[in-house]
């Protein structure tokens, strides 16, 4: 009954190397990647390279965190890559100055206004997704697939397929500082990485310490039960897509700042990389399981792997193959991890029949059920 009795019950068979490797797989994968590439290339293991790679990871990391929120509720957001592209273009458009022919003036909004407007665009796209999914019951896959096309199309229309190049602004217009968002470094660290860290910390807090976080997990775990417990399930669903859109907008700002240009095709297929990061991080696509720490590890695994392959000179075709293999392996391990749990839930669900009347069971009885369930979970590998 006490909290102390839990640890031995959880361990089941004592020190279990397989289980530790399984639970910490994203972490061990990252370590393995770093060791292997450091051995293969002398340039890989250096602070500078890590910072460069991290600034690449920042883009995927931001998208992955937004995606994690959506996936935790049991949804999916395919539109983030396009949203990133559109938001970059919107930022570029605003930096060029908005001219009002009617009044013969051109407005050059300062960078902070650009940032807010761009995030609003991302939030708006997310809101469309969320409302379609929560209130009009459009399957998440279809709704966000539609927005994937729409957002990309709008980005292409806005630019006629061209790229905005001069995002630096000028001091006399008072709109300098765009390059600060991703291109510059603060204390030697790329600003994009710092933004990722900030977003990650806020998300960790939100998930662990706010009612909203609990609502996200419960919506994904069992939306029916959550609703009957008073969780505003529909509002939660809309919120996560809005947040995912905002994350994509931030990623779009960081990326166009890093490149000092904003192209309408930026971020193509990034949604898939973001999903891969979440999945490698151990989240369940069925919702309810996953965390920011794992997702960040997942994003770093993908980023460090593909950058490593570039550094040692492997062809980009092979990079695609490797990334795909890592994703499949990750999903395979996820189903091993969560497959065992399903069995565990199913067992106590069965007993329709009454126990003997004496069963106001001793706590020892309850503990036994746990350890039995644990031991079935401990050998799920045989099921697959």
């Amino acid at each position: 009954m006490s909290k102390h009795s839990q640890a031995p019950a959880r361990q089941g068979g004592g020190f279990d190397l397989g289980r530790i490797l399984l639970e910490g797989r994203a972490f061990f994968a990252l370590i393995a990647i770093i060791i292997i590439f450091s051995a293969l290339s002398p340039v890989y293991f250096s602070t500078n390279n890590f910072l460069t790679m991290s600034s690449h990871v920042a883009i995927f990391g931001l998208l992955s965190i937004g995606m994690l929120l959506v996936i935790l509720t049991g949804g999916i957001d395919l539109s983030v890559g396009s949203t990133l592209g559109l938001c970059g273009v919107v930022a570029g458009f605003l930096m060029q100055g908005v001219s009002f022919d009617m009044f013969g003036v051109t407005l050059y909004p300062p960078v902070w206004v650009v940032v807010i407007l761009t995030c609003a665009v991302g939030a708006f796209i997310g809101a469309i997704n969320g409302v379609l999914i929560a209130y009009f019951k459009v399957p998440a896959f279809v709704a966000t697939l539609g927005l994937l096309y729409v957002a990309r199309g709008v980005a292409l229309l806005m630019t006629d397929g061209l790229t905005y190049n001069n995002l630096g602004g000028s001091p006399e217009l008072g709109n300098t500082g765009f390059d600060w968002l991703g291109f510059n470094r603060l204390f030697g660290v790329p600003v994009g990485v710092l933004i990722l860290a900030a977003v990650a910390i806020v998300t960790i807090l939100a998930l662990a310490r706010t009612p909203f976080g609990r609502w996200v997990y419960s919506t994904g775990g069992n939306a029916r039960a959550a609703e009957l417990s008073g969780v505003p399930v529909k509002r939660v669903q809309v919120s996560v897509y809005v947040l995912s859109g905002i994350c994509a907008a931030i990623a779009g700002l960081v990326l166009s700042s890093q490149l000092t240009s904003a192209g309408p095709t930026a971020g193509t297929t990034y949604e898939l990389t973001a999903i891969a990061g979440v999945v490698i991080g151990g989240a369940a696509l069925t919702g309810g399981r996953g965390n920011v720490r794992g997702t960040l590890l997942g994003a770093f695994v993908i980023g460090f792997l593909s950058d490593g392959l570039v550094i040692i000179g492997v062809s980009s075709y092979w990079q695609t193959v490797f990334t795909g293999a890592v994703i499949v392996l990750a999903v395979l391990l996820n189903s091993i991890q969560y497959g065992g749990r399903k069995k565990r839930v199913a067992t106590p669900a069965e007993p329709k029949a009454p126990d003997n009347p004496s069963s106001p069971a001793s706590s020892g009885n309850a503990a036994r059920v746990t350890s039995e369930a644990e031991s079935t979970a401990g050998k799920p590998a045989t099921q697959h």
Partner: protein
Amino acid sequence: MASSSSRPAPACEPVDDIVLSARDVAKSFGSVHALKTVNFGVYRGQVTTLFGENGAGKSTLMKILSGVIQPTSGEIVLEGEPVRFASTTDAQRLGISIIHQELSLAPNLSVRDNIFMGREIKGPTGIDYAEEARQTRALMEELDEPIDPLTPVEDLRLGQQQIVEIARALSVNSRILIMDEPTSALSATEVEVLFRVIRDLKSRGVSIVYISHHLEEALLITDHAVVLRDGVMTAYARRADIDLEWIVRNMVGENFDLGSPPTGHALGEVALSLEDVSVADTAVPERSVVDHLSLEVRAGEIVCIYGLMGAGRTELLECVAGRVPLSGGRVVLEGEDVSHLSIAERIAKGLVLVPEDRQRDGLVQTMSVGENLSLASIKAFTRWLLTSGSRERGVVDESIANVHIKTDGPRAEIGSLSGGNQQKVVIGKMLATHPRVVVLDEPSRGIDIGAKAEVFKLLAEGAAKQGLAVIFSTSEVGECLSIAHRIVVMSRGHIAAEFGADVSKEQIMAASGEAVVA
């Protein structure tokens, strides 16, 4: 109990008349014993009916006989030979088919395709549809239900769908047919058709195992009666030797004490008032599953709603909680109309529902015991956006102590708890919101009798000490006569009768339509 014995195979029946039997069969799920050494025989060419309350082990026994699950111990003997079924396919090959309460037909496919699903007849150019249709037509004619083989199953009435399911069982040459609650969703005329089909099957030597909650209806068709209670076979008799009273007596048995209505506290004001409430059927919006029903419950009062499946209990309780919309009438909580409030708003005002199906509607399986317990009351320990871990811990520990949950601690997985403790988590979660009115849909479903008694004790205490208004529903007559001050019997969306705590089981069953010939 002169006519009962603890074992089948009574002397008056020749032994070779038993085509299929379970010998000393027991089944446990973890620490829960669903069946305890049951002996059961199926008589050749006759109907053997299995009686018992919910949770008595009927379905478990049937699942064992049809190969859905394997017994923990004991053996199954078919035609004198011990057999083992690894799966339903195994059992089917040996001529045993089960027709579940929820039909397992593909509604989008035709009658023909459903009957031959998974074992299509192959011709030289793929599936031989003509032959399949011919055989289907022959089967349906045999059953006196000449449905066109190409009709999609979704266009058929439920009774006809059931006959399609029977036809499918016959098409694999089933000699033994297990029917689990086949009449629960049928109209009276459809029941007649089904009974005619059953008699016809008997005359062709098919043995039938029948399970039903409609006792008198089952007595019309059965040849043998077997009663299960708490996983033990308590009685067996031939139809000719028994009557309704015998079945009820053996089913219910000497009651485990589930408590008595709490007394010594004055009932308060009317806490919940249902005024002319109607709920439309989701499938057929013109039809009402709850039909102009009015009911008042006072603070400190416990009301039990009894009714058979389809009587509208669940729909009534879900509309009270805000899960399904009203099609008419009002729900009034302590003088305030809450009919248009959301579930969350009703919880905030003190009206909570403990749903019927705790796996589907009650628990979040991905979260721990503690997180489940605090889910509905999370606002109570939130300050400035952030939840307080220590305050949450307080709420959770209090809940665990209040509703006596046996767990390794708040961080234990919800799936590690027994059914009864899981149910207590759902109840504890709703009680943690400090409600005024608690509505529980079948709170005793699928939990053992000790846990049942604890749950009822909890509710009785809540009513007596905190002045909670409690409404709970049940499909077990014995539970009506526990803690309820008032027993409301529902039938077809109406209140069929209302009793005080001094009512008898027979009166309740008569009012619900259970003991009335269909």
